[in-house]
């Protein structure tokens, strides 16, 4: 099984340059805004950016709206229609969706330190 590491990216980068990330394996972090069991999709929000997550590969998972989640998966063209993408003051990525293969709750994660750590890793050309 040839898995590719999920590179940490921010939702605003995906919203701004979604097409550049097509086919890439990424790790995204954000607050769960909504989950639809009918379409097996979730909407993840971080700041003023949102992304639809296709959760069909994750099996039966109990999602709690408002918790902070991390998803690892591949960004592909949209495959599911999520109804809840019209959120006030939030831009949702329209040309990509994340086909998640791993999810985890990261409540308590210090997002300020997390962001700075990722920026430092990018500066050192590790990510």
């Amino acid at each position, binding site marked *: *099984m040839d*898995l*590719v*590491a*999920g*590179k*940490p990216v921010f939702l605003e980068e995906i919203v701004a340059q979604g097409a550049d990330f097509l086919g890439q394996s990424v*790790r995204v972090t954000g607050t769960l805004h909504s989950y639809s069991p009918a379409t097996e999709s979730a909407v993840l929000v971080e700041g003023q950016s949102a992304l639809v997550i296709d959760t069909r590969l994750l099996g039966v998972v109990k999602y709690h709206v408002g918790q902070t989640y*991390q998803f*690892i998966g591949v960004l592909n063209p949209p495959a599911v229609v999520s109804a809840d993408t019209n959120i006030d003051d939030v831009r949702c990525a329209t040309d990509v969706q994340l086909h998640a*293969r*791993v*999810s*985890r709750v*990261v409540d*308590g*994660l*210090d997002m300020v*330190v*997390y962001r700075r*750590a990722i920026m*430092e*890793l990018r500066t*050192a*050309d*590790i*990510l």
Partner: protein
Amino acid sequence: MNLQNIPCSRPQTEWGLDPMFWVSAKLFIGDLSRLVSAEPLSTTVFYIGNQHVIKAVELVGIIVSIERRALKMIYYQIDDGTGIISCVHFTTPAEQADPDAVECYSIGDSICVRGRLAVYRNQLEVIIRESEAVDPNYETLAWLERLSLRKFLATSPFDTKQ
């Protein structure tokens, strides 16, 4: 920036004088793929940075795959954002007798793994000596710690004359 891995010029009898030889080196998984093997002198020792020699590592990442092979082995694939590597846990006879007693992690768990490096079927893997679940903030701290230690590996040489 890729870490420049320079083979150690010291004889094998002096490798033990490098402190890195005896510790579980804290590295990114992405750096492991570029290690230089010490073959033919040893297949389980690797060169890293400025002529340092290591045989064990400490990795922190998320479990993205779990595979149980009979009752004897559990393979975990760990992803820390820079790469993925297989970590194998060899079960003890007591664990084989009672499979439910084996502490098995789940996909998505964040763990810290310490173990020695090995090459199996041309693939680098880590044979787990000890592992523990950690919280997400520990992973962020681990990234920053490894970033700092990388500078030491790249700049401080293994010099026995000091």
